């Protein structure tokens, strides 16, 4: 009885993992086949390992440039988010007053507003500040989009931290401001890892805003480049798949590096909130 229980548990877990991984397999399969072989054939589930696809896809989709743009925007925005939302979270969690709680509830309300609502006025705004086709404006805009969730995570996490960790520093003559940077900030690593993963991925994958505000070819980010590629190359599945593999791998690798902190951060950030 116990053994069958055990086996069925593994079977279920295996099916779960399989379901999640099949599309990745299909993507890799396509990316590694020559153009003549995009169909699946028999039970032969191994591709031809036709690595040339990657270099031709790289050249024709100008992915290198797109990856650089995506990196600049993602790193810039994530740094902004961590700095701005950890400080805001600290002040909301530690100094209870009407002002701070008003900010907090406004942010939570705004989490429910789909970004598409402000597209039109935002376009005028971006034009007026000369932010169309520029890295800095995209960084600030995408950082703002992720602020509510990041501040929410930081606030909940800091609320759960004991005040004593700062208090001794403040007794020694530290200001609250420097106590935050010197002491509290170091305790925020798990939630910072979650914020980096969650906001970093949504910024790396951002399509909705990029398509409006990064129109020049030289400013294209990865999702834009891949989408252009899909639209202009018709049925060349193997090249498109190779481009997609290249485009998603930085995100996947970063996630795999940070993922061990991830659940920890969510636990402390979201659940204690």
């Amino acid at each position: 009885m116990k053994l069958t229980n055990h086996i069925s548990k593994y079977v279920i877990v295996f099916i779960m993992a399989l379901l999640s991984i099949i599309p990745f397999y299909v993507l890799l399969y396509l990316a590694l086949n020559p153009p003549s072989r995009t169909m699946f054939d028999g039970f032969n589930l191994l591709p031809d390992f036709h690595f040339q696809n990657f270099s031709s896809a790289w050249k024709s989709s100008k992915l290198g440039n797109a990856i650089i743009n995506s990196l600049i925007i993602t790193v810039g925005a994530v740094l902004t988010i961590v700095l701005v939302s950890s400080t805001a979270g600290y002040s909301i969690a530690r100094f209870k007053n009407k002002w701070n709680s008003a900010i907090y509830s406004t942010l939570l309300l705004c989490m429910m507003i789909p970004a598409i609502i402000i597209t039109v006025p935002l376009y005028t705004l971006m034009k007026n500040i000369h932010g169309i086709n520029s890295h800095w404006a995209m960084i600030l805009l995408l950082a703002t989009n992720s602020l509510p969730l990041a501040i929410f995570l930081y606030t909940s996490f800091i609320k759960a931290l004991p005040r004593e960790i700062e208090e001794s520093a403040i007794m020694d003559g530290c200001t609250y401001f420097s106590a935050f940077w010197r002491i509290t900030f170091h305790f925020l690593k798990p939630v910072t890892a979650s914020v980096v993963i969650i906001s970093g991925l949504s910024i790396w994958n951002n399509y909705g805003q990029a398509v409006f505000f990064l129109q020049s070819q030289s400013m294209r980010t990865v999702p834009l480049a891949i989408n252009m590629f899909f639209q202009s190359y018709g049925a060349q599945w193997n090249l498109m798949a190779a481009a997609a593999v290249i485009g998603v791998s930085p995100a996947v690798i970063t996630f795999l590096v940070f993922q061990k902190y991830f659940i920890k951060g969510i636990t402390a950030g979201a659940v204690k909130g």
Partner: protein
Amino acid sequence: MIQIGENTLMLLRRISTHLHKFMSLPAILLFAFFFIYPLTQGIGISLTDSNGIKAASFIGLDNFVTFFHDDRAMNDVKNTVLFALGSAPLLNLFGFLYALLLDRQFKGKSIVRTIVYLPAVISPLIMGYIWYFILQPERGFLYHMLNQLHLVFLSGDWLGDSSSALKVLVLVNVWQYVGITMVVYLAGLQSIPKEIYEQGKIDGASYFASLRYITIPMLYPSIKINIVTNIIGSLSVFDVILALTDGGPGYSTESLSIYILRMLYGSFTGYSTAVALILFAIIIIPVYVFLRVTKSKEYEM
């Protein structure tokens, strides 16, 4: 060397002791500039016949009236609500079951967790293209597998058929985001002290009894976060549909956010902004009702 006078030093010290009061200022400034300000502008635009180019004139609530008389818009409201009614409960159910299973001790647990989360890492646009290839009739991976297993009669043009396309989109969406829901439930499960379960066991509680009386009530914060984010996410669904069906066949999978985008491209700027505000209302009402209903529950526990 710059000589700093006693007074300047005093002033600097005073500023630095009060610095913490301004720590949320950068966040507020960013948010006000890139969100609140455009939002208020948007409310203004929604009351005009703006097409983005010529000077717009004020037309009051006409855009909102037009919306409720537009058959396509009403069809899209229906699609959006149906999508959410499918997606949000399924995501929560599977996210919860996945978390229960992967909370147990077994070999390879963390690998499976990572794999289940992985789809959420990929841009929904690319994911959409992959699924498009999997689901293609007579060529796709699924058709091929069914063919090999002599189950080809089960296959069909799921995305091309207006009766099944929306259901397929719901399933793809659930597949992609079940990992996120699962992680939040896992986090909740891990914060439940094990002693409570031991006490329950001593009192003779079965697995299902402890699930009903310990796990679910203790998971309340996770349930709340997941349901709220799933309602918001599925009512504003956008890129999964864009990549897989582009709203088709016909308008059978067009969601409100896709409709807003189409109107925007069609230069109905004022109208599309008005529809966007209606979408916000459609999102906030169920969220508000849910939070209200569960608030009274919170006191009971």
